């Protein structure tokens, strides 16, 4: 059985940053991912990373913008840490080799982004996530002797010892189908969000809530699960993301009458209000018949107002996306977009060092909820979140590992259990529904009832549907009976993960009877600080069935809640 001080599950930005940090502390580190690390969905982050590096800027301004963006649900102690450590982290990445765009003086250039009071987003064209991810992977290649990489290993569950401490994980090598127990003093979950529980979503097909569900099943509480971000600019048909950088560079949003309708809901920031505000404004235009396109289901994003040369240099990826996926030359004509599921602010509840309430279990990045994003994440704060808390989790886990011996749990029981569960899926008779059908219905249900606008009735109906889909998923059959790259059987396991995520999201959305950030209840349209300025925590019930709801306070340091206007 492989043994490591720190085992990291997920190899996107948070995971890779955690691995490098832990290795630097001298810990023996392993990083495991169900895909090759550079395929991780961090690669799709386009616009940039926020940090108050300008001499005119102050991290407190960044922190205030983040608090306001979160609709005051973010924990201010965590936000202070993220924003104050941001400049140093971004410089560290620059030194590592990230090819940040420069200004004429040769310093890092900064672009405008939504919800920010000044230009503070460092970027690499509109492939910032890719550039960061590939540079971190360069570092993993450099440190290949100190960081073990388990690439294309699918984690099926976390390993707990008799005291309930996390001491490893069970995983299946995708290439061979071999099951293995990994023993670790600490496990860091860094395996992203759960976008595939929605259809459509900007998220890749691999983003299936694995880490959230595994932590939940192990008994860790989830927090802010109702807070699901819809990005304002996604291609109408495919849900593919058009970066907020487009609006940062000056692009306009127009309705069918050619009006910049953001004047109504955000007269100051206009298109650069925070994402929940812009998405809601778009949805209102569409719902009230001022949408564009065949069914009036879209909004025009007009990039032609940005100088063409600037677009080609700084927004090249979306020039390609427009051409290849919508047949539109965005430098010449507007492109049709609409809000689409993009990010989950919620996740596994952690402290500022990535620790969950389960000893030995950490989480960082989208899988986690510290919470720095609260009710709504600002654009270009997610990359920052992954790096800051990935590093902190890696450092803390390495320090903890130095104080203890290698655990010696009885891993074989869990290993046999997970192997048997896979065998059982393979043996299911060909009756009932296919995994893909259930997944589609789940995604469509969530997109209908747990989207930009929500109400009691819709959420209740979603809850019922999810209950039925869970039962159906227990007998969903697969075609592939093999062991080599059996993606079919892994898809069945992922479906279970997604159902857990969807279920807890809907339960939390039903619970929060107010409108705050991304949670807009048409039946409770006001923000109610007296009653709801608190986090909703969801834990798995004793019997494993019904989620248990509890609350935890929001940490407020320097910024009292106020009315939120853009």
């Amino acid at each position: 059985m492989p043994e490591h001080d720190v085992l990291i599950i997920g190899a996107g930005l948070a995971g890779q940053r955690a691995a490098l940090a832990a290795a630097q502390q001298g810990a023996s580190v392993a990083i495991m991912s169900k895909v090759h690390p550079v395929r991780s969905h961090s690669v799709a982050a386009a616009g940039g990373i926020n940090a108050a590096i300008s001499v005119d800027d102050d991290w407190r301004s960044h922190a205030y913008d983040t608090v306001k963006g979160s609709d005051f649900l973010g924990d201010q102690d965590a936000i202070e840490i993220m924003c104050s450590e941001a400049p140093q982290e971004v410089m560290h990445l620059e030194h590592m080799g990230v090819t940040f765009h420069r200004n004429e003086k040769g310093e890092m250039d900064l672009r405008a982004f939504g919800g920010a009071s000044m230009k503070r987003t460092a970027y690499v064209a509109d492939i910032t996530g890719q550039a960061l991810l590939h540079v971190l992977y360069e570092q993993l290649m450099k440190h290949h002797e100190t960081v073990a990489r388990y690439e294309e290993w699918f984690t099926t569950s976390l390993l707990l010892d008799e005291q309930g401490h996390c001491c490893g994980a069970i995983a299946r090598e995708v290439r061979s189908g071999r099951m293995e127990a990994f023993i670790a003093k600490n496990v860091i979950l860094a395996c992203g969000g759960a976008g595939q529980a929605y259809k459509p979503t900007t998220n890749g097909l691999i983003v299936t809530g694995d880490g959230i569900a595994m932590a939940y099943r192990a008994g860790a509480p989830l927090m802010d699960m109702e807070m699901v971000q819809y990005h304002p600019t996604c291609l109408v048909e495919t849900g593919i993301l058009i970066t907020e950088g487009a609006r940062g560079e000056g692009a306009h949003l127009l309705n069918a009458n050619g009006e910049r309708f953001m004047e109504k809901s955000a007269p100051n920031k206009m298109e650069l209000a925070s994402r929940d505000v812009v998405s809601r404004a778009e949805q209102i235009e569409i719902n009230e018949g001022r949408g564009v396109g065949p069914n009036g289901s879209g909004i025009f994003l007009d990039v032609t107002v940005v100088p063409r040369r600037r677009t080609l240099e700084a927004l090249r990826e979306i020039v390609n996306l427009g051409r290849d996926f919508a047949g539109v030359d965005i430098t010449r004509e507007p492109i049709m977009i609409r809000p689409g599921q993009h990010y989950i602010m919620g996740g596994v509840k952690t402290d500022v060092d990535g620790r969950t309430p389960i000893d030995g279990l950490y989480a960082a990045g989208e899988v986690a909820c510290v919470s720095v994003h609260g009710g709504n994440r600002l654009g270009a704060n997610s990359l920052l979140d992954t790096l800051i808390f990935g590093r902190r989790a890696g450092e803390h886990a390495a320090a903890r590992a130095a104080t203890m011996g290698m655990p010696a749990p009885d891993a074989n029981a869990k290993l046999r259990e997970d192997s048997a569960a896979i065998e059982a899926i393979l043996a299911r008779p060909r009756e009932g529904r296919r995994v893909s059908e259930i997944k589609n219905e789940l995604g469509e249900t969530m997109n209908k009832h747990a989207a930009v606008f929500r109400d009691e009735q819709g959420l209740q109906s979603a809850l019922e549907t999810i209950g039925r889909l869970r039962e159906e998923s227990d007998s969903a059959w697969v075609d592939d009976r093999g062991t080599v790259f059996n993606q079919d059987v892994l898809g069945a396991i992922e479906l279970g993960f997604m159902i857990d995520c969807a279920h807890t999201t809907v339960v939390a959305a039903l619970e929060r009877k107010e409108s705050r950030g991304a949670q807009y209840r048409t039946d409770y349209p006001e923000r109610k600080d007296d009653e709801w300025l608190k986090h909703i925590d969801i834990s798995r019930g004793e019997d494993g069935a019904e989620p248990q709801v509890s609350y935890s306070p929001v940490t407020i340091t320097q910024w009292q809640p106020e009315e939120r206007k853009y």
Partner: protein
Amino acid sequence: MAEAHDRPPEKFTLRMRRYDPESGNAPYWDEHTVELEPHRSVLEAVLQAKDRFDGSIGIRCSCRQAICGSCGIRVNGEPALACHTHLDAAKAGARDGVIEIEPMGNMPVLKDLIVDMDAVHWKKIQRVTPWLLAKQPVPEREYIVSKDSMVDVTQTMACIQCGACVSDCLAMEVDPGFIGPAALAKAYRFVGDPRDDEPFERLNDLAQDPQGLFDCTHCFKCVQACPKDVNPMGQIMRLRRIATADHKIVDQNNGARHEAAFASLIENNGILWEAELIPRSYGGNSWFGKFAPAAGKELVASIPTAIRGLLRGKMTIPKILKPHKIPSQDLKAVRSIYERIESRPERYELNLYIAGEDEAPAAVAAGVASEAAGNQADPATEGSAQ
């Protein structure tokens, strides 16, 4: 316009090359007919077949938007990203109206459309020391470097490691040890980065390696294959120019001299003179150079090839002794290209991220390389400095 996409779904038939390593059987062809709008992608078609008919179809994929680099395959024999290839275009390119889908080449197939990228692609990437060897001392804030230099290396940074260029690299097919287009493009990302401290060592290493810089045969396959316009061969040529012209590296493989021989022969005659190529490659561009010992050795080694050429009439004694001739106005035109290029104070390099003038032709939108000089970019049309 988006309206252009309101075409109804159509039927598309896929012919997929399947391989199940556990069955003990050879690869076989498998057909499925799917129904999708014509502008949807080949990936969506494969996934529909997987979702509806056969969940055992193996394909790596994630983002669906040509950024994660997972779904490199061959469509109608050409390397491509499945998610980046439209069904109507794929059907139009098919021999018999059936879209043919296969795994990529030059890498071992693990199952169906999944190849072993670790065994080939990633091993080669690791070979080029793929991390920044940062100049010391590391500054407190960012390195101050020119805007153009960062925009320039961003073109190679845009490589998504999909393997499409590796799949169809002709040089790698002949010499599997060739470092190859993706890894050499990655090498440029550091050589071109002004923050890197060891460009000479990197270039020397790659130039001296018999399977390195000069192993590329300039066939353009990788340029055509790349879905992100990284232009790997262009990066290889830039590495060569920097190695030979800027760092004066003369490699043990005779690659630099061989290239110089080509250039001087074309300048002299406007067309290649094959018989003179070996002497010049080894002995340099002088009459005495013909008697360089290495040239003699190479000439002797070429005798069987030369005899075959003579026997088949591809070569004649007069052709060996005298250069080919082209009309004098053509020769003048060829020489004027040399004059124009050599009179430039600095080398021009292609880069797609440096987009030229604000009203340049829509070259980028058309997916065609536009020649633009980074050092001549007009600052007046730049976006905002902070």
